[in-house]
């Protein structure tokens, strides 16, 4: 019988029941960061464009979506989505309970947290078209295939 290693990485998805305001997103991400054990993390949600993308108002600036700066683990970055889902890979199962507790501390409303397989392991055709041969496979599954190259996800 093969014994499973207790240091095998696990993948987790956190889905809050509401979309997060930048302040709450910052607080949640900091709690997750302090819990440690993160191999990679992706935040997901609807796009927040900087100007009206189409229609009669095309090109009008959307000031509310600009300069949404948050600071996580001492590093500042700009949010380009409204955070609604977080997927992450942890070094091992021992960080899972701490992660759950971190979510409970940071989120003022209910949320779902589940383990599963959320990042793909082989490059897709889009990955190949965008990046060619992928050397670091950790990037797989972190990227919005529709995003422009200059707006691809940040890796915390």
């Amino acid at each position, binding site marked *: 019988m093969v014994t499973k290693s207790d240091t095998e990485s696990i993948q987790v998805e956190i889905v809050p029941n509401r979309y997060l305001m930048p302040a709450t997103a910052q607080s949640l991400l900091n709690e997750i960061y302090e819990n440690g054990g993160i191999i990679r993390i992706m935040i997901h949600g609807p796009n927040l464009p900087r100007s009206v993308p*189409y229609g009669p108002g095309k090109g*009008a600036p959307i000031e509310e979506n600009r300069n949404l700066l948050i600071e996580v683990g001492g590093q500042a970055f700009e949010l380009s989505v409204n955070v609604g889902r977080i997927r992450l890979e942890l070094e091992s199962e021992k960080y899972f309970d701490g992660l759950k507790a971190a979510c409970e501390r940071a989120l*003022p409303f209910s949320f779902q947290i589940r383990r599963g397989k959320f990042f793909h392991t082989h490059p897709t055709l889009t990955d190949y078209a965008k990046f060619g041969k992928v050397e670091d496979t950790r990037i797989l599954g972190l990227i919005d295939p529709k995003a422009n190259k200059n707006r691809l996800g940040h890796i915390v």
Partner: protein
Amino acid sequence: MAYTPQYYPGSTSVGINRRKHMSGNLEKLRDISEADIVATMGHRAPGADYASTHPPLKEMGEPDCPIRQIVAPTPGAAAGDRVRYSQFSDSYYFGPSVPYWRSYYGSINCKGCDPGTLSGRQIIEARERDIEAYTKKIMDSEMFDPALAQMKGCTVHGHSLRLQENGTMFDMLARTEMGKDGNVYQVKDQVGIPLDKKLNLGKPMSEAEAKKRTTIFRVDGVSMHGKVGARKYDEAVEALHHMWELRSKWGYRPE
């Protein structure tokens, strides 16, 4: 005895609300000024003249037509206004009106309008001064809620997403904002062009109130299939099955 139209079956709160929307016997919940409605629609500046596509009907010398003699034109048609629109989007989280019911409301209660129903939004087109009057009626009534329904001329996809932290429907263009006083303010017109000043739309409904007034069947609110496990269908479902059968088998022609 005068005939009273029977609009929709069912004894659930959703059925009752759907009947209310169709009949037009709506409760007035707020009073948004006409100028604010006009500014939100964004077709003309408040107080500006109406642009026209043809001279007033009285000056045109209409042909001798019995139908034209029977049907009085709407004020907008009589004046020769342009055709303009207002479009609403309702959240799936107990939004006050589902698109089909907005269309039923328009078809039954708004003379000279052209409603269009899509999955998450509903547009009504009519002559400019008519659509302004209809839109005011809608926004003042229980068919509108500042948090769960919005006038969105484009980019409507927040209707199918989770709500934001402050309980409002997500809007990519940030056309409304939640004020510190608890009121929702319209800061842009329906296509996302910033307004000169913030327009107060009032306080959003509480969750309980929204559940009471919604026209959406939801499994976590009023389920279309009755209580889970009970399998006691509402009359609305039976009527729907009946209509579906007639439509499928005989194309509404049972002879």
